């Protein structure tokens, strides 16, 4: 029987919505098959599939450096990291499937350009230090967001986040260790590390999304326990952790207005260039076209392989029936 998703025109919608919101208020998890508003389902599919796509597209900028990693150990660590991202993509797609959407439909939305993924992956990885910086800043920002989502009201998403956070924490540590090492290294290494921080700092701040006042989804997401913090809160946590560490390493942050506020204990950042953010979200970032093209190419070139798998499985099934 198809799962029932509530819409406001249902006669019992208001009553069920009250029960649903009371469950969330009590801290209960909503599980697949439970009654839920259609809008809750829609928002979750949007978020989880975006998140899955981000993992899959996120394999590209880092994966490109596997062949150029400078030591056997770094190469091994990077392959393991990119593999983790594929794994995250996989269980996030599964989490979204519990809401009644297929992986094929989600992939189709990605390849057609309809679905979004984190805009951070539309920036290029120009040097090896970018790999460390992505681990430190980009994964650092992702962890802040994902730790928040681990407490979210939808059971499968929340559990996926718990697992993913554990692995991301590892990536974050490795990335930080690399950048700190290069910050103390030769002049060239140092400069490479600084250049990477300069390029990734602002995009990392933008990862948490627009300011609360410009974020139309935030209110309902908070009310239904999908998000438990606002974009600005998460961004502030990220800056408070990372800004002092970067400065401590002897590197600079490309924000002349950045300052520590004694009264609140917060690091206050200067204005974010939201024009750039919306340009990238809208498809005009430096790598949007290439990233999508790489995904499309892999999908198209893999078509004959997937067909072969199906044909083989069908033959095996026929033999099994005949026997």
């Amino acid at each position, binding site marked *: 029987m198809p799962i029932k998703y509530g819409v406001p025109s249902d006669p019992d919608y208001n009553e069920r919505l009250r029960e649903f919101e009371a469950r969330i208020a009590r801290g209960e998890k909503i599980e697949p098959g439970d009654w839920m508003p259609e809008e809750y389902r829609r928002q979750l599919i949007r978020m989880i599939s975006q998140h899955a796509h981000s993992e*899959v597209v996120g*394999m*590209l900028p880092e*994966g*490109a*450096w*596997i*062949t*150029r*990693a*400078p*030591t*056997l*150990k*770094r*190469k*091994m660590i990077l*392959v*393991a990291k*990119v*593999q983790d991202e*594929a*794994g995250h*993509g*996989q269980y996030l*797609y599964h989490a979204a499937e519990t809401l009644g959407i297929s992986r094929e439909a989600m992939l189709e939305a990605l390849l057609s350009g309809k679905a979004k993924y984190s805009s951070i992956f539309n920036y290029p990885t120009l040097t*090896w230090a970018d790999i460390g910086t992505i681990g430190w800043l980009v994964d650092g920002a992702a962890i802040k967001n994902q730790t928040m989502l681990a407490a979210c009201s939808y059971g499968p998403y929340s559990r996926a986040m718990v697992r993913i956070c554990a692995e991301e924490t590892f990536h974050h540590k490795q990335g930080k260790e690399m950048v700190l*090492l290069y910050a103390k*290294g*030769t*002049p*060239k*290494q140092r400069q490479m590390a600084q250049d990477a921080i300069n390029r990734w700092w602002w995009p990392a701040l933008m990862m948490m999304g627009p300011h609360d006042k410009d974020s139309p989804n935030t209110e309902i997401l908070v009310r239904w326990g999908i998000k438990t913090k606002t974009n600005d809160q998460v961004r502030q946590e990220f800056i408070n952790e990372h800004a002092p560490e970067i400065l401590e390493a002897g590197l600079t942050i490309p924000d002349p207005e950045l300052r520590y506020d004694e009264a609140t204990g917060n690091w206050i950042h200067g204005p974010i260039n939201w024009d750039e953010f919306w340009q990238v979200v809208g498809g005009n970032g430096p790598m949007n076209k290439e990233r999508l093209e*790489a995904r499309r*190419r*892999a999908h198209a*070139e*893999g*078509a*004959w*392989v*997937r*067909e*072969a*798998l199906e*044909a*083989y499985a069908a*033959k095996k099934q026929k033999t099994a029936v005949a026997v």
Partner: protein
Amino acid sequence: MRSEVREALIAKLTALADDEVILAHRNSEWVGHGPILEEDIALANIVQDELGHATLWYGLRQQLDGSDPDQLAFFRDANEYRCCELVELPKGDWAFTMLRQYLFDLYEALWLEAARHSTYQPLADAVQKIIREERFHLQHTQAWVERLGQGTEESNRRLQQALEMQWSYAQQLFVPIPGEELLVAEGIVPDLAPIKERWLEHSTRHLQAAGLKLPINPGYQPTSRAYHTEHLWSLLAEMQSTARWDAEAKVW
């Protein structure tokens, strides 16, 4: 250990490690571009194991002559590498990559099986560590050969094409390196001749069951590991570009 045996063992360990490093490089080119997400994961796993094997072999060499594994991997030129030519060939399509991996995995699994009883204890210990994961690789790639061979006309054709290209290259895996007979005589490494026989028997049976034909005219078969394909230079230029980018850098 007599010095000529030691020299031969150093050369053999280098050849073993170089095969793994270069094959891992080719396989890693797929990560993020595989035909299904699950295969990105599986191939990334194989790459990590291969890098692990390379680290083990270079590590055994390090015990003998103090050489640094990263120096060997990132600061030797193409003409100093001792990998076989099979692993250097560009990754090709999925059939090409899976077939090469199968042919290599079968060789490696059989070699490891025979090397378990090496009289050189560090080698025997290393083999114990990796023999299980090599069996997993073989299971995985063996299954792919069967699926692609028996899948569609197209997948069969692509796999057959890969086989035409790779079959004779694969034979180089069984060409002893100079001095290898000394190692065999001392029981340090297994004799390649009986391994080749088993490899031929297994692979022929499996490939034919998958609906493939062994090439009638196998073509050029490389022998000396001192020679390479024209691909190795650019492969290393890419692989070593970061490590060699800053002459002053001590650590990465």
